[in-house]
């Protein structure tokens, strides 16, 4: 397995998510698409962490052991993103419920208040 394949998968995931987030009318579907984008980013971050960071660090620190403190940067990012995404979904669902209560619809096309 090479780095490129992971990056391609991450990019595909991100692109699918972006397409969904920009095109879906249903707010839940938009939220789900957002999750796809997050995961595309996660895959990219972890892959980069696995393949490029040790190599780059070994050049400046001679041995992998010396650079142990930096090895897990990408993984930490991924964990953070998963946590934040969970919180965000909770918040997003709350907003959707609030919109549904006030307008009795969850279609994002109906919420065109930014123009005003």
């Amino acid at each position, binding site marked *: 397995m090479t780095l490129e394949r992971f990056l391609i998968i991450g990019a595909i995931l991100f692109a699918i998510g*972006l397409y969904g987030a*920009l*095109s879906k009318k249903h707010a839940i579907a*938009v939220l789900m698409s957002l999750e796809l984008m997050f995961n595309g980013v996660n895959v990219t971050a972890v892959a980069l962490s696995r393949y490029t960071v040790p190599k780059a660090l070994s050049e400046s620190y001679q041995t992998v052991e010396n650079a142990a403190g930096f090895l897990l940067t990408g993984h930490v990012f991924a964990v953070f993103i998963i946590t934040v995404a969970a919180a965000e979904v909770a918040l997003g669902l709350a907003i959707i419920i609030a919109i549904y209560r006030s307008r009795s619809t969850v279609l994002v096309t109906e919420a*065109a208040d*930014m123009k005003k």
Partner: protein
Amino acid sequence: MFNEQLVWAIFFLPLISFALISLIIRPFFNQISVVSGPIAVLSIGASFVISIITFIETTINHNNPVGDPKNWLTIGNFELQVGILLDPLTATMLVVVTGVSLMVQIYSTFYMKNPESHHGTENQDGKRETHSAKPPDDKQEVQPAELGQPVYARYFAYMSLFTASMLGLVMASNVVQLFVFWELVGLCSYLLIGFWFHRPAAAAAAKKAFIVTRVGDFGFLLALMYLFSKTYQENINYLDIQTINDQLPGLVQAGTLGAGALTLIAIGFFVGAIGKSGQFPLHTWLPDAMEGPTPVSALIHAATMVTAGVFLVGRFFPIFQASQDAMMVVALVGGITALFAATMGLVSNDIKRVLAYSTVSQLGYMMLALGIGAYGVAIFHLFTHAFFKALLFLGSGSVNHATGTFDMRFMGGLRKKMPLTYITFLIGSLSLAGIFPLAGFWSKDEILLNSFMSGTDGGEIISLIVFVLAIMAVFMTAFYMFRALFMTFEGEFRGGSEKDPEAKPHGPVHLGESPFLMVVPMVILAVPAVIIGFIANPPGNLLGIEAHWMVHTLDHMYHLPKGEAFNIPLAAVSTLVALSGIALAIAMYKPKPIISAESIGKTLKPLHTILYKKYYFDELYEGVFVRQIYYRGIALASDWSDRNIVDRIVNIVGWLGANFGGLIRQFQNGQIQMYATVTSIGIIVIAAMFIFGD
């Protein structure tokens, strides 16, 4: 004690007075605007005293304290300097300008005190005229803020600025400095001629003066640019007047500068002088300039503005001298103007216009004297002319104060009512006519003598032509001055402003001598009008004054040879010509005339009409140049290009904005997804630029 700062003070005192009056008194203390008169008089009085000191130090003690000019602007290697050029010419002009200005301003302190009494009723009249001059659908009437309010402070502010500008002009050591003051003088004349700006005639006259002199100024400016482009060198400053005069003729001899280029530069300067000095064919503004207050006319015609042209030619005399063609043009224009203006003076009924034409004519004399090489004589005539012309204008103001009109057909019989005005006016007229031994005689005689001698002995055909023109003008000058004198002061009083239908603007009739402060300057000016000629330039050695002192001092400045000595036969001839002019005026205009002016007017009807209509020059300029060439030609062409080219470009730009705006507006629909889409595309574009850009 006599140092450069003192000479600068001559210029700065009136300027300070202007600043004080216009920036402090007028906006904050207008209720005590009466102090602005004394402020202006005191400052110009101090300038006058310093000018006298400067004149004596410069011409007699040959003491020149002026240091190097100071840098004003530095642009790369090019430096623009300001400084004083102090020589006998400057010194003479300083005395003339400050002296006449002092007298005029003393006179004005009363003349302008109650403008209501002179011009007050014009408010009503002016309004009516304004109204009728406008299209009837325009009901909005312009009400100048100052209508009916005291104009005293404004008047003295302008007068101080005018004097300061003229002093700056004569002191300038650099051509650019000179040009700045040259334009300032033009501006001030515009402000002062249009002083009664709510009267349409005055506003029009001010515009006319400004625009007509601008035509000349343009020639001056072109000559300056040409001079600069031809001579610019990093190590020699060819904008310094002294350098120009000293070195430019040498450049022609050395072959670095073409003789044609020098002629062009000289002619360009002379075109400027034509405009400012009201020479043919740009003389039309000068008679109209009579719309200003009378003391302003005195100042414009005697000391400032119109003498600037003569001064300019005198200032660059070595350049003119180096070009035969330029000298010929100057002499011919001067000679033609001298005669041409005098003929128009013969028939004018407005006393101030008669004086205006005589000014144009006398300036023509000065120009022709310059043109035949008699530089010192020309400045000497300028010097004497300043005094008696200022006197005559102040006299006409005094007459107007009594009768309320300027039209001589409604005057008459004022000799007994206004004896002092009469005597001083008589002195001024005799001096202008060139009667022995008054001031005008000596200077005019020198001009005639020099042109005659250079024509006969020197064999210059041009000099002979201008001599003939000048001697004819002598006759006419004497005639029209005494015509004016007789119509104004002799016979029965003919009603003044009460009879004159056009005189309402000028105020009521109250016959009697004018107040003290108006008479005193006239009496003071009458003294130099009598004696200054033989004091400054005696025919022989007189009480320690060398013969022809003034002319020789001035000529010496440019190392010219000594001019002709006094010549009794020619002086007798010119006096006889002048006397015959006076005799004809007496015969035609005394109470019971021997020759009836009306019958002559009828016999020579076409000639009279041509003269009365001023040779149709106004009609020519207005009808042909302004209406046909400018309105129909240039203005229409610019109008077309404005509509079809400029407007079209603007419209296309506007159309593009409107339509592209509409396109982009589509994206702002309130849908957050649309916004996110646009943002994403933007990010992709930026990323693409990063990746593929290089």
